[in-house]
């Protein structure tokens, strides 16, 4: 008799984080149901980068894929973290806004179309400054319009994380899925150290960074919905669940008085302990996979 072979989990695991943005977006869809829109061969590039000696990318670092997820119509829009830090420029921002608007149009016409936003981004692309910032405002608006009809699902997987104005997009989403490696916040540690000093935030303290911005903390304190292992199959499964659940009865950002009261109850005389905050704010339904 042969002894059974024990195969460690990690052998079969397919890392989601190691995939580039295009592969991540593609991996979410039902096989054979997807196509890319305004892709590289359309060459809609940034009109602003070459003037500054920066090589543009053929898709401006934003990938739009339309198809079916769990049998339902969906569109995925992914920022490529390796191009200009995933930052939002005029074109990449417009791709996300336009895709959200088309999903809303379809949804209003009776074909609810969910949107999955893969946010690896440091925020606004400084080389396009005001057009990047305007694009973020427009994305926020379009996400809010779609979420009335179909779920807006944000994935923050790492390694770039989701910072800057795009963190507000995560905030207004119907569901936010994170990995442990991922981070979500308005200002990254370096920016805080730069603006408010090293005592306010030591950006070399990795433990502190993940204690505040990390996926486990955000899910634990109820500001994100699911914590997923770094595995493409698990990620797809988590997204399918959200598509199936549909539009939540009430979105988190509509619960103003609940959160206003929580902020009022904070003791600001010293720094806030993340673990304590997690206990105080824990959502009993926060899902860990």
């Amino acid at each position: 008799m042969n002894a059974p072979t024990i195969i460690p989990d990690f052998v079969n695991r397919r890392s989601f984080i190691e995939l580039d943005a295009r592969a991540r977006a593609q991996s979410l869809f039902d096989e054979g149901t997807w196509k890319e829109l305004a892709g590289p061969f359309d060459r809609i590039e940034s009109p602003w980068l070459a003037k500054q000696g920066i090589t543009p990318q053929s898709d401006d670092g934003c990938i739009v894929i339309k198809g079916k997820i769990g049998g339902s119509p969906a569109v995925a829009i992914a920022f490529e973290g390796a191009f200009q830090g995933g930052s939002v420029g005029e074109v990449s921002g417009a791709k996300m806004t336009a895709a959200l608007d088309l999903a809303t149009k379809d949804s209003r016409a009776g074909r609810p179309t969910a949107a999955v936003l893969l946010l690896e981004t440091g925020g606004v692309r400084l080389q396009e400054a005001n057009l990047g910032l305007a694009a973020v405002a427009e994305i926020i608006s379009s996400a809010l319009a779609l979420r009335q009809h179909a779920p807006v699902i944000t994935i923050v997987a790492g390694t770039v994380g989701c910072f800057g104005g795009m963190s507000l997009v995560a905030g207004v989403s119907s569901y936010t899925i994170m990995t442990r490696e991922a981070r979500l916040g308005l200002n990254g540690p370096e920016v805080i150290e730069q603006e408010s000093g090293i005592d306010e935030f030591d950006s070399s303290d990795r433990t502190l960074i993940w204690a505040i911005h990390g996926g486990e903390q955000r899910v634990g304190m109820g500001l994100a919905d699911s914590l997923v292992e770094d595995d493409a199959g698990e990620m797809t499964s988590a997204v399918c669940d959200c598509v199936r659940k549909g539009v939540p009865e009430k979105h988190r950002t509509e619960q103003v008085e609940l959160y206003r009261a929580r902020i009022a109850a904070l003791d600001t005389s010293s720094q806030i302990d993340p673990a304590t905050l997690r206990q105080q704010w824990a959502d009993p339904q926060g899902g860990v996979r």
Partner: protein
Amino acid sequence: MEKIEFNYPEAKRLITKRAHVGVVGSGDMEVLLEPNSGEGARVFITTSVNGFGDAWKAVFNRFFSKFDGAVRIHINDAGATPGSVLLRLEQAVEVIEQ
């Protein structure tokens, strides 16, 4: 910023597929490879690293010494090494020859 163009009129084999590989990260590049509408092959390079025209020429001479497809190649480069360039081109060829 430099824009560089090369022509390889001897590369005449009919190609029907297209391929896109790579990301324009620091030290990296992307390749868009597709059938050329006219005869021969044409290469269009946009690079943020100036002064390497000869190196690019050498890389493409080498590439087209083995590949004879009538293709249009667009490259967006942010400082890839010649070795990486060849690798990306080979990846693209793999996709279209599948």
